[in-house]
């Protein structure tokens, strides 16, 4: 293979195959989210989601409201950049959720239909690899990269500046600080060859919530919530891949002015299909639904998710310009 041709393949693969997809409002990220790429790469992700269920999807604590039904349409544009820190691969990202939500809300035994729209709480994310190959600081590093068994540390912080109306319980903004500490794991199974890659991926994490001191005039507290996402991913071709997804949540018991809610213990299953449209653009389509959710108090949620990620690196863009001149 000629070097230039190989370069194109590398970047088509590493920049666009969803490595820089943003976190989602459901506190899940797509499979292959924590794959690593060349330091200095940029990405603009756009996630569009359609959700329905009995919990406010903007509330990561997923407080179930028996008998309620929510519908939400969301978009999450963002920006992410990869870099090297202490010779380890790192990424910083910001995501700004926006959209609209409507649903039935029960307050003091009375159910009313409410809606909200606008911007949600922006997410600041920082991820750094702690176990696995060193950062890919140049293209030879990319050439030799295989994740093997990689472990990252993940920090998310949601800044409470999203749209919030203290007169109603249904909001896009959460009016409290909250965040996540996680440990994304990518486990390479078999060869690291586009078209043949298989991975098993996990994200164990804990969510920590500040108080919302003005939740319809009351104080909303939420216990820490534990999350484990799992994905079995597999290439179908060099540009087309799929994943079986699972998510399990526990904890996150909410209380309003001391009135205790139910602790979460939910399992969701889903699938994702990914397609690399060209050297810069990657598209994924996913669906996930909760299981064992027949009882009224059980959390129930399902979502369709489409992501589009545009990735680029200045050096690759320059090489393409030179090549197209010839």
């Amino acid at each position, binding site marked *: *293979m000629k*070097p230039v041709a190989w370069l194109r393949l590398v970047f088509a693969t590493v920049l666009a195959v969803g490595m820089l997809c943003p976190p989602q409002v459901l506190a899940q990220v797509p499979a292959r989210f924590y794959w690593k790429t060349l330091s200095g790469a940029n990405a603009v992700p756009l996630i569009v989601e359609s959700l329905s269920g009995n919990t406010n999807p903007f509330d990561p604590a997923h407080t179930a409201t028996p008998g309620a039904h929510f519908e939400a349409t969301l978009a999450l544009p963002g920006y992410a950049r990869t870099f090297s820190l202490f010779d380890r691969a790192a990424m910083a990202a910001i995501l700004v959720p926006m959209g609209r939500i409507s649903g039935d809300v029960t307050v003091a035994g009375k159910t009313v239909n409410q809606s909200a729209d606008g911007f949600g709480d922006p997410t600041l994310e920082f991820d750094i690899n702690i176990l696995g190959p060193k950062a890919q600081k140049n293209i030879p590093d990319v*050439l030799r990269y*295989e994740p093997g068994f990689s472990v990252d540390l993940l920090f998310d912080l949601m800044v409470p500046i999203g749209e919030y109306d203290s007169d109603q319980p249904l909001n896009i903004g959460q009016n409290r600080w909250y965040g996540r500490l996680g440990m994304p794991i990518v486990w390479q199974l078999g*060869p690291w*060859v586009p078209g043949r890659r298989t991975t098993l991926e996990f994200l164990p994490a804990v969510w920590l919530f500040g108080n919302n001191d003005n939740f319809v005039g009351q104080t909303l507290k939420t216990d820490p919530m534990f999350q484990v996402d799992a994905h079995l991913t597999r290439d179908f071709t060099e540009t087309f891949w799929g994943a079986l997804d699972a998510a399990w949540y526990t904890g996150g018991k909410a209380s309003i002015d001391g009135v205790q809610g139910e602790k979460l213990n939910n399992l969701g299953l889903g699938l994702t299909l990914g397609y690399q449209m060209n050297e810069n653009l990657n598209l994924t389509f996913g669906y996930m639904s909760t299981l064992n959710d027949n009882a009224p108090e059980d959390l129930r949620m399902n979502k369709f998710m489409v992501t589009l990620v545009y990735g680029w690196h200045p050096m690759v863009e320059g090489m393409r310009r030179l090549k197209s001149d010839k």
Partner: protein
Amino acid sequence: METVLQHSTPAIGRKPGNLSRLPRMLGIAVMAAVLAAPAIASAADAPRRPNIVVILGDDLGFADMGSFGSEIKTPNLDSLATAGVRFTNFYTHASCSPTRSLLLSGVDTHLNGMGNMDEWMAPNQWGVDGYEGVLNNRVVTLPQLLKDAGYHTYMVGKWHMGKAPSQIPAARGFERDFSMLDGAGSYWDMTNLSAATPQSVFTEDGRYLTRLPKDYYATKTYTDKLIGYIDANRGDGKPFFAYVSHQAPHDPFHLPQEWRSRHVGEYDKGWDAVRQERLKRQIELGIMPDGTQLAERMWFLPDPIVLAPVTRAILGKKMELYAGMVENLDFHVGRLIDHLKKIGEYENTVFIVFGDNGAEGNDLFKMITGSPGTRDFLFAAIKWSQTHPNAWGDPGSYVSYGPMWAQVSMTPFSQYKGWLGEGGIRNALIVSGPAVKRPKGSVNHGLLHVADLMPTLLEIAGASYPKTYQGRELPPLFGTSWGRVLAGQAESPRTEQDYLAWEVFGNRALLQGEWKLRWEYKSFGKGQWELFNLAADPAERKDLAAERPEKVQALAALWDSYVRTNNVILPSRSVFETLEDTLPPRVPVDPGYPPALYKRQFVPPKDMMADPKP
């Protein structure tokens, strides 16, 4: 006596009805043993003839073993060098099957059927005796003669000298064989290179295989099979001849995962640096004389210094794989050595190790797959399209390392496989074992040729080359025995007047003493005779033809004699006939030229630097 009883007892035990004859038979056996005792004692006193193991590395380069200056780790091959002698002036042919035909017949290629490679036989050579493209039936083979002399004869690996039932190893003297009949193919399965020949053909003990054994990997399986053959016949006291014709390290570079990452990044420095390092070690080891210069980098290759790191990394990775191939080969050679030690045969085994021609700098895959829209391209798309670097080494990948690394493998020489520069035909040779009386680990510079193996090994086996075989008059041997050289009684089997000559693909060369006459297609050659003094210029940097016309004339006369004597018919077509049109015009390679490429950023003196004035 034990042997006699052991042989007799089961025969008696099989038939209960014969029990009444037991005492009588035992008596006969005892008598026979007593009568045979003096003969047995005599045989025990006589020195056992040595086993012979010829280890051929396919496209293994002159400088690829540690004992010949390589950074590639070959401890097992090197152990043979340490125990034996290294030869630095050993010549093969420029390509695969011609060398093999010389090895197994001892007869010049234009007489033994390999006047040209089967794949490139020219129209004017079709149907001509000596140009069958297979080892023809006018020659007798080394294994045939050794078998007649009482040797077991085994072969494992690549054959490449004919596929018809009368041409396969079992028909040419090998008692046991596990052979790939093709010249190249997958190391993992039966996939071959082109749509015309999509499957490699294998034989085992004279039968064509319908499938390969489980867990097949060429180098490993060949070794396993050979060890099995040796063990199967071990008890009968006969020596064996083993032709271990490894496919490795011929491309495609197929190798197990764990062998691919032993030199990560080591070759990013580029081919020039590695060549310089190898030459330095060669001089330290006494392989090359002090003051030896490297051959020019081929004019169409870039100076790696000017390449982007990624380009060097990608090209370097190919060399990493090649190094892994050689090390894996060495590992399996080590398995064979260890086994022979374990069974007590190592000390009585003559090892001969060499590569069959220069390292491969041609792009065989490109030659075969052709261009989009062709039949072979489609075949490659289906069978050989694992092009991602992380897939290199896997089934379906085809990696070769190109002329830049081939030059490294052939340090310090010029050119590579297929050509008659020293880099195409001169190779490393190790000989060890009881036939070698020279100091252990010594280096010899005598002029040797692969065709010498026939008379040499016959001499070691106590046999000789007959004038006729099965009623057929045999062509004369091309080679000369190394017996006196191995015994330390001579430095070379040849005098200054003896000459060697080569012709393949229309390229031709003749070597006499320190002088070499060479004709090659442009732009590797000049399309006319060139003259080199190898003693002063082993890298063939300076053509002396214009300065020494009388020497050219004298050597050309010898060449004409060689042509007449050996049935040489220059081909009307050649694989290289249009090469000149595909390469950039040949220019000298002067280090550091043009300076524009090498000038570094000018940094002004700090105390003279200033910001712009307002």
